[in-house]
């Protein structure tokens, strides 16, 4: 049901031409459309308390995210309603929790996670940004990268070091800070796939004591649990991208003729399409597994399955997107054709919250912990 409704909405309101216009606007963000999606109730889905019946079941969000992937949908949904809301749900205290979740679900609050740094790559332990306690406040100092839709965010979730050294996995805490806090400045950028991302500079930012979300010094386990949910949703989105990419190629080889035949009649092309198709199926299976992991598993078992899925799907999705362009020939390189834009999207999705290589390495590390 969600699938059909989302598909209809995106088909009508987000065809390729509209998408291309939208990502080229100044903010890359359409306020009216955001309002509409809030009204559709999508932003309630990821959080259990706020949606009747679904109870934050990852399956429903996954269906929606896959639909986003199919339509190459760009919005702060993932950033705010998935990552932001999930972190708050898992880590924040009442009543701030309910209040913020409500604001996110209704649309006015857009929360973006500021957890990575230049040198950290995908390793959250590697955090320099500091939060020093003094009286009633924390003073935040440092800078963050990969802050999605920082240009329209209302709040940041900042990972900062409250104790320990740069590489320690302990000593980290999460702060929820409104963006108009003094000392926060931004470099806003466009991303290749049409989204927006910011580098955030924190210069003696004075955060209130209650901006600390979750356990002091011990943010990482809970944060990782929230991110597992987010990563599983990225897996779903990637399978959506793979679906569309595959369908485009199939349609193209059926209709494009060379040497007097449709190129889909050449056996070498057929075999490559079959390989693409199989990759779609394998990715779909792993995406279901990632969703199952966050619904039904905990701890190391959840971590392992989520990383396995992200690694596998990231690889498969990139392979397929590249093949899709190749099989389109020169047409595949054209800006006016959707296929290249799906490669750009998949490149971004693969990178978000850890690329295939990162998750492959994490899987290995987790296996060592698991087996000993």
């Amino acid at each position, binding site marked *: 049901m969600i699938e059909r409704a989302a598909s209809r909405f995106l088909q009508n309101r987000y065809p390729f031409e509209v998408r291309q216009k939208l990502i080229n606007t100044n903010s890359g963000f359409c306020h009216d459309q955001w309002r509409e999606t809030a009204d559709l109730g999508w932003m309630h889905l990821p959080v259990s308390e706020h949606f009747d019946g679904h109870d934050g079941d990852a399956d429903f969000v996954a269906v929606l995210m896959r639909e986003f992937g199919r339509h190459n949908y760009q919005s702060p949904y993932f950033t705010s309603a998935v990552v932001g809301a999930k972190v708050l749900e898992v880590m924040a205290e009442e009543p701030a929790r309910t209040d913020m979740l409500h604001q996110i679900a209704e649309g006015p609050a857009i929360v973006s996670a500021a957890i990575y740094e230049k040198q950290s790559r995908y390793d959250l332990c590697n955090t320099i940004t500091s939060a020093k306690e003094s009286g009633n406040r924390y003073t935040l100092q440092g800078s963050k990268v990969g802050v999605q839709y920082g240009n329209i965010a209302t709040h940041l979730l900042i990972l900062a070091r409250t104790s320990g050294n740069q590489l320690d996995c302990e000593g980290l805490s999460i702060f929820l800070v409104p963006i108009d806090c003094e000392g926060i400045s931004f470099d806003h950028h466009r991303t290749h796939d049409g989204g927006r991302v910011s580098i955030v500079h924190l210069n003696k930012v004075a955060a209130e004591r209650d901006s600390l979300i979750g356990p002091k010094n011990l943010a990482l386990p809970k944060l990782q649990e929230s991110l597992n949910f987010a990563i599983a949703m990225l897996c779903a989105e990637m399978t959506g991208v793979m679906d569309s990419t595959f369908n485009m190629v199939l349609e193209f080889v059926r209709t494009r003729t060379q040497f007097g035949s449709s190129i889909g009649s050449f056996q070498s092309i057929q075999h490559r399409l079959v390989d693409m198709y*199989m990759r779609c199926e394998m990715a779909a299976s792993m995406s279901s597994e990632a969703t199952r992991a966050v619904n039904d598993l905990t701890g190391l078992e959840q971590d392992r399955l989520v990383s396995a899925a992200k690694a*596998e799907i990231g690889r498969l999705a990139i392979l397929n997107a590249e093949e899709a362009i190749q099989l389109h020939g020169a047409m595949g390189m054209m800006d006016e054709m959707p296929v290249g834009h799906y490669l750009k999207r998949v490149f971004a999705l693969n990178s978000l919250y850890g690329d295939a290589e990162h998750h492959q390495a994490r899987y*290995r590390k987790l296996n060592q912990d698991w087996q000993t």
Partner: protein
Amino acid sequence: MLNSPPFSSELEEFRGTVRTFIRENLPDNIRKMVAVEQMDLPREAQARWHRILRDRGGWCCPSWPSQYGGPQWNDAQQYIFEQELALNDAPRLMIYGVGMLGPTLFKYGSESQKQTILPDILDANTFWCQGFSEPNSGSDLASLKCEAQRVGDEYVINGSKIWTSEAHIADWIFGLFRTGKGARKQQGITFLMIDLSGSGITIDPLLLFEGTHEVNQVYFEDVRVPVANRVGVEDDGWEIGKYLLGLERFGTAEVSRTKASLERLRRIAHSEVPGGSRLIDDASFAEQFDRLEISLHALEMTERRFLLDENTSKSLGAEASMLKVRGTEIQCDVFRLTARAGAHLSQIDLPRDQIDSDLNTPYSLGHTARNYFNYRKTPIYSGSNEIQRNIVAKAALGL
């Protein structure tokens, strides 16, 4: 190991029951043959295990209805049972009689054929083999030429069948024979069952390049076959053949078998080496291992989806082909990696009777290379992976 989602508690209880039975009743000498990945078990070993399963309530024939002595299990039960066989080093079920001819007779056989043939399969009194491929009809199966000329109440067979697995230990062969010439080559093909002890039959062994005798060429010279041994209608056997090939292909993904092989490799890779480092601590090896583990899990979940999801079509045309392709690809990768694990000692061509399956360490692994070579057959047999891709392109993609 990535754990798969549990089934319902009833089914998991069922799993426990079959697992316990297998572990308690599988003869150790048979378990060891399977544990070193031997596919071609001797007839005695096959028959022995088959009868142990039969005595437990017809488990040797999991898909068979109870009226023919089977347990009449549903798809999920069959799936779980075959998984447990694989994961506990039990032999594969007898594919030709149990897996192929049985279902064919249920669907196409006459009542008297069912009455006479099925009991001997159930009791492992009769071993069957399958005669499809011919020297010049491999991938292009419908071009088969082995002739069955109708003479009164008999067919007279002349020609030969090739790549016939287990013909040398079988009593009977079933297969497709040319009875006529239609406009399309798929016409004029008839499904017959032939007693291999009859006169005019010669069975020549064809050794695989790593030395095992699994397949044969079967020659027919004026072999007389009663019309009663025909299944279905004369000249209309192609449909039965297609049905049969579907059954065969379906089992060839061997996901659980490969899982068991990967677990063997895991034990090898984690075994301590005096003063040396474990293989799993080699980053490059570990990454290859992990990637295979993940790919195999993706395939396992896909297989479960295809086989057990209510929404998936039960015809399993393209789906079976995809499982076969990916299954055999991963299987070959696992065997290649395992063969490399032994370094110098993988080079040793140990006679089978000197292989100790319990020595799962990086050394004493001469058989792992043999398995690597032997399993190169899997992307070729039962319709090569190239043919399977053709099938998927046509059936699933409409190309």
